């Protein structure tokens, strides 16, 4: 069983489209995250949710909107995709301040 699963794994889409990446964790963790790994391979935090509440919202364009229907799910919706949004997006979960467990990543390519 995959502890943190995200779908789709690969996504190729055109500029201007709206897309979503789904994430689910079965670890019983209270905290979930979205990280972005950019072209320079930096892993940067985008959002953090604790028990469905937004805790961290880094400087991310408003086109990115996380949604947490329950504490086991944190989906990422992206509006009006731009070329610069191409990256690998990692979902993750943890207990607060503890080891983070990552999903396998979603490779987004905007063409």
């Amino acid at each position, binding site marked *: 069983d995959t502890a*943190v699963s995200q779908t789709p794994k690969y996504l190729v889409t055109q500029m201007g489209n709206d897309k979503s990446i789904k994430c689910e964790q079965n670890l019983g963790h209270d*905290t979930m*995250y979205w*990280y972005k790994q950019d072209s*320079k*391979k*930096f*892993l*940067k*935090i985008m959002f*953090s949710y*604790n028990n469905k509440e937004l*805790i*961290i919202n880094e400087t991310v364009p408003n086109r990115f909107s996380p949604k947490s229907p329950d504490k086991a799910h944190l989906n990422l919706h992206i509006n009006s995709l731009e070329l610069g949004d191409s990256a690998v997006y*990692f979902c*993750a979960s943890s207990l*607060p*301040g503890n*080891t*983070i*467990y*990552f*999903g*396998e*990543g979603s490779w987004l390519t905007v063409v």
Partner: protein
Amino acid sequence: DQQVKQNSPSLSVQEGRISILNCDYTNSMFDYFLWYKKYPAEGPTFLISISSIKDKNEDGRFTVFLNKSAKHLSLHIVPSQPGDSAVYFCAATISDNNDMRFGAGTRLTVKP
């Protein structure tokens, strides 16, 4: 603002030798440090961690050393094996905080 830095983008060592990966941080509030390992097309996986109350933590072939005064930590792998070839990310956090900062990663290649 890169609070966690891995200044070596790559490292190549011979099988059986020691691999030493280095990491520096700037935020003195960090009190918990982790190393993650990442294979291509997979998410990072937790490898080993250390709390700021310790200066060394060992787990099999992997040892992490922490030098708080220098704001520096290192990961030692001995003996190195070809299967250790991966990208290693250093990470730092403040306990009970929901944020974790990562370095840019170091690609380790272990040659047979």
